[in-house]
């Protein structure tokens, strides 16, 4: 339970709501507030210190610092999308990127196959409870490349990564150190089992989470060029994807997008023009 940040109110506010139920004051995004709880921060700091000490013992201090700095300064939240969805996002300021729950709820897409749909609901419910429909999922990336196992209807279609601007997500993004599905499975999260502390972070602390997770793979000889692949590795299979997951509260439109990376090039004229139009629009928006 938090306390309302309105000085005139100061009423208790549950962690999983955004508006104070007493005065309506915006107390912040619930996913971010979960990540800033003292116990969560303390556990993350503890994991970070342990990772740093272990790296020092292996003589990997410089690599550790280099990786931490790279993540702190260069890592971005990325989402992979097909060419048609990419263009539909860029057509005007009106379209919003809608997450799975919103798309299903608005009958804009079908739910995944029943067994996957149930799993998704269980995982989202375990991590976010009633505000799960507000959360969009992204991955943390150093080179702008995203997960090729998401975002397209078939492996014959183009795939692009949208890179979200820091300004657009800084206050509303939180992170989990791995894919939420594998996290919930690995920690056997279920009724009555709380989320273990130390695996979540705010956007500003993403480097702490990344090094806490990956320090044991950082050796004195690890080249900087390998940092991107360490932070996010994908071979098009969700089972084997490795990444830090980013949770963004609320929808966003095209102005939140900072870059477009063509990960699997368009093969048809229709796909290529969709990508070109989105890129041109992005370039024009940057000038304004």
């Amino acid at each position: 339970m938090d306390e309302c940040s309105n000085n005139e109110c100061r009423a208790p506010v549950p962690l999983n709501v955004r508006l104070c139920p007493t005065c309506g004051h915006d107390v912040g995004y619930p996913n971010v507030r979960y990540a800033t709880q003292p116990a969560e921060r303390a556990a993350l700091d503890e994991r970070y210190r342990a990772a740093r000490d272990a790296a020092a013992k292996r003589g990997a201090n410089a690599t550790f610092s280099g990786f931490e700095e790279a993540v702190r300064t260069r890592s971005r939240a990325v989402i992979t999308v097909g060419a048609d969805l990419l263009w539909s996002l860029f057509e005007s300021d009106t379209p919003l990127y809608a997450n799975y729950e919103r798309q299903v709820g608005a009958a804009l897409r079908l739910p995944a196959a029943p067994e996957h749909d149930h799993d998704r609901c269980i995982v989202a419910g375990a991590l976010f409870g009633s505000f799960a429909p507000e959360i969009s999922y992204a991955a943390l990336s150093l080179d702008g490349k995203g997960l090729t196992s998401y975002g397209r209807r078939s492996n014959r279609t183009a795939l692009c990564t949208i890179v979200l601007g820091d300004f657009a997500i800084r206050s509303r993004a939180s992170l989990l150190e791995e894919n939420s599905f594998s996290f919930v499975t690995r920690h056997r999260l279920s009724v009555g089992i709380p989320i273990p502390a130390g695996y979540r972070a705010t956007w500003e602390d993403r480097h702490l989470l990344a090094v806490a997770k990956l320090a044991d793979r950082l050796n004195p000889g690890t080249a900087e060029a390998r940092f991107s692949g360490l932070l996010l590795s994908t071979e098009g299979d969700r089972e084997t994807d490795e990444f830090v997951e980013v949770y963004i509260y609320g929808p966003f439109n095209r102005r939140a997008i900072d870059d477009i990376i063509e990960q699997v090039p368009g093969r048809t004229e229709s796909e290529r023009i969709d990508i070109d139009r989105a890129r041109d629009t992005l370039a024009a928006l940057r000038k304004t």
Partner: protein
Amino acid sequence: MIEPMENAFLSERLGRAIFSIGGRPMVLCAEDEEPWECSAHEMVLMRQTDPAMRPLPAEDCDIPRLRARLTAIDRRRRALSWLISGMDPMLTDPTRREAIRLAEQALSDRDVHRHVQARLLGRPLPAEADLLGAMHLTPRGKHMAALGIYGWLARARKAIGQFHWSWAEAVAVLKLRPEDAESVLWEMVDKGVVAAMIRSIMTGDRDGVNVAASQSFPAFQLLAHVANALLPQIRDDEGKDTSRPAGTIKWFNSTKGYGFIAPEDGTVDVFVHIKAVECSEIKGQERTPVRGRGVDKTTAASDIKKAGRDPT
């Protein structure tokens, strides 16, 4: 044995069809290889998302036909999107040129052409739409449908604005719910009724406005209001239109089937052919124009325009 498809509905807006096979609710999109099974709840949601979703006749209720219709919808949607991109000043010239080229290819399909033109004429263009640029970028070739549509749009901007002002006024007067009016408007746009009315406004054809409005079931009352609001504007425009003068029949040879009208403004006589007279409102009153008979704007305008000026 393959079970028959039942209760099929097609949504142009969502680009998908919903139906049931053996009591199981299914969905089919243009890009799907096979239909997907969905829940009854999702089927209800889809029906709510697109109230204009219409039941399909029994003869269209099979997967190949449905896929063909959905593919046609997808082709129309893409062609419209490409043509709009051709006018988008945020895009670079090479991208706009390529979008117009793709649109041009798609417009060779008559159904796509009709739909795209109806859609573009039926809605106001955004202020930033760069029509002149689009016309400049349109590749020149044998088939210049895109150029034709851009040309229409350039000429129709004022008429489109007039139509939508009158529509908004009629919606307010009839106290319709905006979402209902919007749904009716889309239906009228896709039927080509709005485009027909706009063409009539542009040509000053009051009959055309009335005819389009009268053919627009179930929006007859709404469009009758719109037509009433538009007709005085058309008359005003006619008053300023020097190519459509009033005058007096100077002479008319009913054997040869032509004659001349002396315009009121004293300018050169206007040639008029019997076919034009037959098309006009004189028809039904007197089969042959009589010398010295005054013809006002409303009587003779269309005759004179069709006949053209006396070459002498």
